[in-house]
């Protein structure tokens, strides 16, 4: 060891201490810098042989718990998500108004109910009539205004998506820049602690916007994916693309199929020139972006659907006239017209090399017109593509085919299976006994079947009901209840009047009832109704009954289907029909804009809450709320009482699309009760979202606090360190001083 050695060792100490001081200075000055982690310098001794000859700095390291950091990033995404959704829920909740205030939605509902009640007590009072008009207007204006608010919130959410996408793109860009810098620094073998801080800061910003996974590479670079694995950053930044929608209205919906979607989606380039649709693939599950998307496509549309459902129920409750069925006018063939009444129809076997080829021929008279029906069931020309046997069903089809050809009709049912026999009938006309069979001959049936000419007693005829559908409007429903004796169950079919074939088939959720089968069909066209029922495997046929009624006929008491009941609801369009029903609420300003829940084209219910109006005829003449026609006595409260009952007592079934009740177990209530449930459910959702947000805030804050303990700069600690470094520096300097004095001493010897 030499004096020079001490000198150089002290020098290295001074150098390291200086570097340490630099770090302390940087720590103190960056104490409040976002994303700054506390830096420390690790140092080690420099050895010459076995002797320490100095000290060296091994580089700056960050005080960072990487597991904690990963968890924080995930929680940041969750925070961004719940904060965004909670904010929208909270705004929806505030639309409901303050408890007890006159403008709260439930007060508006209650007031409308009360004024209807008062009108029932005083039907001719102008004050009472005006009160109903006034409260109804407040109600519909509230519905209109809330719809407008919901749609402008959706527009904001759409804008929020755009902003979020912009933030993501900016962050990815910054990450790319920081990453490149890091790569070049690490290439020189240094540790770029501040650059790492910078990159982490931008990754954290990104994590708030969407759920990401970050993978560190060995060379110090990072790769970033969405949690579902779509690459966002891999050396270069991907670019997200989003097109905001200019005008968002209730009819604008998002669809995973972009050709069906009215709203923009978020896309990201795959690098191979293609793009991935992040929304359609459900690739964004958390973060602000997911929150905005959920608000735009789920939360707000559901609230709109809730209000639409209310408006829909409100308009229909007042305007639907229930129509009962009547006994049908028999269209039933006499027993004399049955084929095979005496025996059992077997299977005609063609496997016999032509030995069983044969024919049936008979004259069929329908409404006085006689045609000869010839059916040849030769093996060679029996039925294209059929098996080698013919059963009852196939023979029925064949008779229908031949009879339609003979009479020049299309799709008319002339024959149906009735037990083991075949009944002949006409579904086109209403007259009784209008079908008969004569000159029945058959060849080569012996031993195979006992089809006969039906001269003996046979089928018991058909049963059915008919219903007057005069004035039926698109969307009006006919309910058919029948028993399927083979399956042993009673079934409910709702036939919805649809005049636009392009809108078919209808979803089963057009009605709230989970137990019915919904069939959309043009109910003014019996042929179409028959075809629609047949297409659903229901052996009930439609025809035109007396007075143009729709007639539904089953296959007789001994057959498979028995019609139990038939009813309809028809939208009333006139104000003075002599009945209590009236189109009190319309779809638009003109009184002709009736609301019938039409399913033609876009369902009329969509966005109805934004369009619902009080019928202008009632605004002009509130007396219509009591006057069912010009001769209604002033004190007659029939209509007013009906309106009151429809609002306050009559049970309604709420569609699950409103987010209230389930598809399989729909919510049943009254209109007034539904209005209150809207307030309750909206408030409940807001409270739940707020609780989720608070919970998330506690988790995230807790993690951030731990990170802060780990990584934040503690000024006291730095000051202590400073004092320590000062001492070390002074000591090193003292060593140098001593060495210098020793050198001087030596030189002066």
């Amino acid at each position, binding site marked *: 060891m030499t004096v020079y050695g001490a000198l150089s060792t002290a020098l290295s100490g001074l150098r390291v201490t200086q570097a340490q001081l630099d770090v302390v200075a940087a720590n103190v000055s960056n104490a409040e810098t976002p994303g700054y982690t506390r830096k420390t310098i690790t140092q080690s001794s420099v050895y010459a042989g076995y002797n320490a000859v100095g000290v060296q700095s091994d580089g700056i390291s960050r005080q960072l718990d990487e597991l904690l950091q990963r968890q924080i990033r995930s929680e940041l995404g969750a925070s961004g998500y719940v904060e965004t959704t909670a904010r929208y829920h909270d705004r929806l909740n505030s639309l409901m108004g303050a408890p007890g205030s006159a403008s709260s939605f439930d*007060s508006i509902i209650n007031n409308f109910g009360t004024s209807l009640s008062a009108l029932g007590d005083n039907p001719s009072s102008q004050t009472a009539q005006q009160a109903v008009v006034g409260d109804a207007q407040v109600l519909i204006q509230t519905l209109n205004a809330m719809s407008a608010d919901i749609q402008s919130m959706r527009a904001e959410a759409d804008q929020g998506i755009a902003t979020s996408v912009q933030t993501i793109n900016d962050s990815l860009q910054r990450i790319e820049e920081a990453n490149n810098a890091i790569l070049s620094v690490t290439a020189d073998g240094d540790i770029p602690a501040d650059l790492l801080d910078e990159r982490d800061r931008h990754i954290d*910003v990104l994590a708030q916007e969407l759920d990401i996974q970050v993978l560190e590479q060995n060379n110090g670079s990072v790769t970033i994916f969405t949690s579902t694995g779509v690459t966002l950053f891999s050396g270069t930044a991907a670019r997200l693309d989003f097109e905001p929608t200019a005008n968002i209205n209730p009819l604008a919906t998002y669809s995973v199929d972009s050709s069906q979607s009215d709203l923009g989606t978020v896309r990201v380039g795959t690098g191979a020139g293609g793009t991935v649709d992040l929304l359609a693939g459900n690739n964004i599950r958390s973060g602000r972006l997911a929150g905005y998307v959920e608000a735009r496509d789920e939360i707000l549309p559901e609230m709109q659907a809730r209000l639409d459902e209310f408006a829909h129920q409100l308009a229909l409750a007042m305007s639907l006239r229930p129509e009962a069925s009547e006994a049908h006018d028999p269209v039933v063939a006499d027993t004399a017209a049955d084929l095979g009444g005496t025996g059992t129809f077997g299977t005609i076997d063609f496997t016999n090399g032509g030995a069983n080829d044969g024919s049936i021929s008979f004259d069929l008279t329908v409404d006085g017109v006689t045609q000869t029906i010839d059916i040849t069931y030769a093996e060679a020309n029996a039925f294209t593509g059929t098996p080698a046997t013919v059963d009852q069903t196939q023979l029925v089809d064949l008779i229908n085919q031949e009879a339609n050809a003979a009479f020049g009709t299309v799709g008319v049912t002339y024959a149906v299976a009735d037990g083991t026999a075949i009944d002949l009938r006409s579904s086109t006309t209403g007259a009784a006994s209008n079908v008969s069979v004569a000159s029945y001959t058959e060849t080569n049936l012996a031993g195979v079947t006992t089809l006969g000419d039906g001269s003996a007693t046979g089928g018991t005829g058909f049963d059915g009901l008919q219903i007057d559908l005069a004035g039926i409007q698109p969307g009006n429903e006919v309910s058919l209840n029948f028993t399927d004796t083979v399956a042993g169950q009673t079934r409910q079919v709702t036939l919805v009047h649809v005049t636009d074939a392009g809108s078919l088939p209808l979803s089963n959720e057009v009605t709230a009832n989970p137990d019915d089968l919904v069939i959309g069909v043009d109910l003014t066209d019996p042929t179409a109704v028959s075809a629609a029922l047949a297409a659903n495997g229901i052996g009930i046929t439609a025809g035109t009954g007396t007075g143009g009624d729709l007639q539904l006929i089953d296959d007789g008491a001994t057959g498979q289907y028995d019609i139990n009941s038939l009813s309809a609801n028809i939208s009333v369009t006139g104000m003075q029909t002599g009945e209590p029903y009236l189109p009190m609420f319309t779809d638009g300003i003109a009184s002709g804009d009736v609301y019938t829940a039409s399913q033609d084209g876009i369902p009329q219910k969509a966005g109805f809450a934004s369009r619902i109006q009080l019928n202008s005829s009632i605004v002009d003449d509130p007396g219509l709320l009591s006057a069912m026609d010009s001769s209604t006595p002033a004190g007659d409260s029939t209509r007013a009482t009906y309106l009151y009952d429809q609002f306050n007592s009559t049970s309604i079934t709420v569609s699950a699309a409103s987010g209230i009740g389930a598809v399989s177990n729909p919510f049943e209530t009254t209109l007034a009760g539904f209005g209150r449930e809207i307030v309750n459910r909206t408030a409940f959702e807001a409270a739940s979202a707020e609780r989720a947000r608070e919970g998330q805030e506690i988790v995230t*804050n807790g993690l951030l606090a731990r990170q802060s303990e780990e990584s934040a700069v503690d000024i006291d600690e730095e000051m202590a360190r400073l004092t320590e470094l000062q001492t070390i520096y002074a000591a090193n300097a003292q060593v140098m001083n001593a060495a210098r004095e020793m050198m001087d001493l030596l030189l002066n010897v």
Partner: protein
Amino acid sequence: MTVNSVTQATMNIDRMLSMRAEIDDLSRQFGTGQRSDNYADLGPQRTTSLAVRADRTTIAGYRAAIESASVSVNIMNETVERLDDLLEEVKGDALPNSFVVENGNQTTAQIAAEHRFQEMVTLLNSDIDGKYLFSGLSTDVEPVVSAEAMMKGSGGRAGFEQVLAERNLADLGGTLADPTLNGRLDIATAGAISSLTEAGNDVFGFQLDTAAGASSSSPNITVTGPAGAPNALSFEVTGTVDVGETIRFTLALPDGSSRDIVLAAADTREDGDEAFVVDADPLVTAANITTALTDVIDDVARRDLIAASAHQAGHDFFDNNPPLRVTPDPVDGIAGATAIAADPNNTIIWYQGEDGPLDARETRLTRVDENVRVAHGARANEDAFRTALRETAVFASMDYDVDDSSAADRYTQIANRTREGMDDPSGQNLPRSVSVELGTAYTMMEATDARHRSTDAIYANLMSDIEGVTEEEVAAKLLDLQTRLQATYSLTATLSELTLVNFLR
């Protein structure tokens, strides 16, 4: 939340801010008395709050309805009670034996009845706030035409007086001025047979009562009938009739009452005696029976028949809507009329209100509870009010000539029928029955109102439990928060001094 900038200091700031917000919310609660200004913050109690609030609004509506309806029912009840009083007064005045004609042709009781009739009409036309009380559903239509129009007719339409006069003419077959009235019975002699034959209608005049039949106590008078179409009754004298022997038959009168006629054989008879003179010659006896019948029938026509006719005219006019009246026969005029029918274009329709199938009470309903509607309507033409109008009108309408010897008896007949018409021990057809029903409606409304009041009070308590706050509670919370916030402030201030920087010199 900002990213990564959370230091101990900023977390302290967050905490202080949230305490600050809590203080703001508490002072809002203090000011408004409400726990929350939105439904979400009410918590699970929110459904109760919504339901209770709806119920309270509804209850307020019911109570307002009850308040206005009970005023109306009260006024109506007083009106009906007055109508009942008027009816009793008319009845009390109509004494059968007090025939003293005042101003020429009417008694004091009749003149008073006429005034009471006018008051009845006025009462039945009462309204509240422009709504007539006795018009059924047609609350905008004055139910009863004026007393003047009802009695005298108006605008070319006949009133009750004309309907009454026509009915009298059709029943009597002539007027009181005629020397002889037969009440539409043909009385004739053919050989030894004296006979009575109806004019061939079942509506007007005397009807021979076939159920009561006819008889003779004399072996020498053979009775045939009453039978046939038209009904005929004959007495064939076959030998000598002894004095004291009688013949008997019954006349049915238009109002459903009847009059037994018993003629006794006598040696002589005076006008008005219900007797016939016997003679050895059956032919003469038969002629004498005819003479007696003619005289007695004339007497009964002037007393019983005309009174019954007037009473029936009252039923025709007041009990039917539109009123029924004699349909003139094209050949014989009213005196020979055979039918009664409505002639709405030429007759006053006294009741103008609604007259549908509903029970009169059901024409005005007030909802006092979810499923309870109290009925308190009325129609001026319901039994109770109609009876009062009808009997009073009939009693007041008849004129009496002081020189007419039958006038006093006729007055007695009319007065008796008026008293009978107004007499109903059960009270079911009198105004008091309506009064009872209205009283029940009123009591029910009051009881319901009391129940609503107590329910509302319970609900109000419940609401304030859910939504309200007590001042003490809020004040205590505020104080606590204030203390904590102050402590946090001063602690933060102290802590900020506690940094090594301040101690390194």
